[in-house]
C-alpha cells in the first residue's frame, strides 16, 4: 500500500467521529476505491508516475477532513460553542461515574446511581435551557459552521514551487473576529520516494486585510518524513484577528515544498453583539 494513500486515509480516520469498527469499515471502503482508481489510471496512463497519479486521485477525492465530516450522523453536528460542549462533557462524566458506582457497590449504591442519573437528567435539562439562553452571547460563527475560506494543497509527487495567485475571501461587516486555522504537515515517504524529492523545502503564508495591512507573514520549513523515522516539522496554528469588512487575501509561496498545506477561515461574531 502506498504511503500517500495511507497518509490520506489516516487523516480521514483521525477526523471521523464514529466507533472504531465503523471507522475501519469506512477506511477499508475508501481504500478499495482509491487503489482501484489508481490502478485503472496506471493502465491507461503508463507514462505517468504512480506517485503523480495517486496525488491526482486524492485531489479529486476531496479534502479528507471534509469527507470525514460528511459521515457525521444527522443531528449530531459538532457543537460550535464551548458552553454546550462543557455541559455534555460534564453530563457524560457524571453518567460514567454513576454507572461505575452502581456496578461496584450493590443495591444501596445502585439507587444512589439512579438518583445521580435523575440528577444528571435534570442537570442536562437545565444545561440545555441555560445553553439556549446564553447562546446568543457566545461567540458564534456567522450564519453557519461553513468556513468563509478553505484551502488544501498536497505537494507530493512533484514539489510545489513559486508564488500562487493570492486567494481572496470576503468578511462580512457583522464579523468581529477572523479565525485562521493553518496546518502545514510533512508527508511520510518511502526511502526511495524521499530520494527523488528535495530534502528541505518551505512555504511562506501571507495574510492581508482589505486595507492591504499584512496580518500574518510566516515561512514554514519542512522536510519529508522517511518511513520509520520520527515525525517532525508539522506546524498547526490557530490565529485570530480583529475583523475588517471586505476582501482579505492569502498568498502562498512554495520553495521545493513537499507536504500538505490546509487552511480554513471562519468569520466570528463576538459575545454580547448577537441579535436576540
Amino acid at each position, binding site marked *: 500500500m502506498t504511503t500517500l494513500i495511507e497518509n490520506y486515509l489516516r487523516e480521514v480516520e483521525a477526523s471521523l467521529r464514529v466507533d472504531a469498527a465503523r471507522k475501519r*469499515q*469506512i477506511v*477499508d*471502503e*475508501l*481504500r*478499495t*476505491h482509491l*487503489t*482501484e*482508481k489508481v*490502478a485503472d489510471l496506471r493502465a491507461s496512463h503508463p507514462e505517468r508516475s504512480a506517485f503523480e497519479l495517486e496525488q491526482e486521485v486524492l485531489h*479529486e*477525492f*476531496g479534502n479528507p477532513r*471534509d*469527507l470525514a465530516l*460528511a*459521515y457525521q*450522523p444527522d443531528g449530531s453536528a459538532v457543537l460550535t460553542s464551548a458552553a454546550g460542549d462543557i455541559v455534555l462533557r460534564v453530563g457524560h462524566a457524571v453518567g460514567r461515574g454513576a454507572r461505575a458506582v452502581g456496578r461496584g457497590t450493590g443495591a444501596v449504591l445502585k439507587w444512589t446511581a439512579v438518583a445521580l442519573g435523575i440528577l444528571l437528567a435534570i442537570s442536562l435539562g437545565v444545561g440545555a435551557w441555560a445553553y439556549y439562553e446564553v447562546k446568543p452571547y457566545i461567540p458564534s460563527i456567522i450564519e453557519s459552521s461553513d468556513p468563509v475560506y478553505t484551502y488544501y494543497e498536497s505537494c507530493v509527487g512533484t514539489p510545489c514551487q513559486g508564488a500562487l495567485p493570492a486567494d*481572496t*475571501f*470576503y468578511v462580512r461587516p457583522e464579523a468581529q473576529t477572523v479565525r485562521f486555522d493553518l496546518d502545514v504537515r510533512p508527508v511520510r515517504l518511502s526511502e526511495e520516494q524521499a530520494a527523488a524529492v528535495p530534502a528541505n523545502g518551505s512555504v511562506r503564508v501571507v495574510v492581508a486585510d482589505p486595507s492591504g495591512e499584512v496580518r500574518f507573514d510566516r515561512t514554514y520549513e519542512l522536510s519529508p518524513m522517511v518511513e520509520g523515522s520520527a515525525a517532525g516539522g508539522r506546524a498547526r496554528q490557530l490565529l485570530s484577528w480583529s475583523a475588517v*469588512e*471586505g*476582501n482579505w487575501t492569502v498568498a502562498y509561496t512554495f520553495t521545493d515544498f513537499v507536504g500538505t498545506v490546509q487552511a480554513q477561515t471562519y468569520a466570528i461574531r463576538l459575545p454580547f453583539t448577537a441579535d436576540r
Partner: protein
Amino acid sequence: MVASGPKAADIERFREKLDRELKAGVVSLLLLLAIERSGPDYGYRILKNLQEWSGGRLAFKEGTAYPLLQNLEKSGLVTSYWGDGASGPPRKYYQTTALGREALAAALDEWESLTDSVSDILRNAKGAKRS
C-alpha cells in the same frame, strides 16, 4: 458587467451553496438508480457507471458519494455486504431493498414532475422577459 468585491463574493457563495444543495439530492438519487440498474455493486464501480452513463459530464468529488451511500443504507433503501475483490482489498457491495425500489420509483416520478415544472417556469419567465 462583471461583479467584483463583496458582490462577486456573495454571488460566488450563493452559486457554491446552490451547487452543493442541488448535487446532494441529485447524487443520492443517481446512486440509488445506479445500484438498482447494475445490481449488487461496489462504490468505485457504481461511480464509474454513473460517469459513463453521463458521458463524463457528471462532476462531483468522488469522496462525497460514500457518506451518501451510508445515508441510503441507514434509511433502509440499500443493504450492503463485504465480498472479496478479484485482486486487491475486499469490496463493499450495495444492493437495493424492496423499500429502496419503491422509494426510487417515487423519487423518479417526483424528479420528472419537478424538472417539468422548473422547465415550464424557466420557459415562461424567458417568454415574459422578451415580451
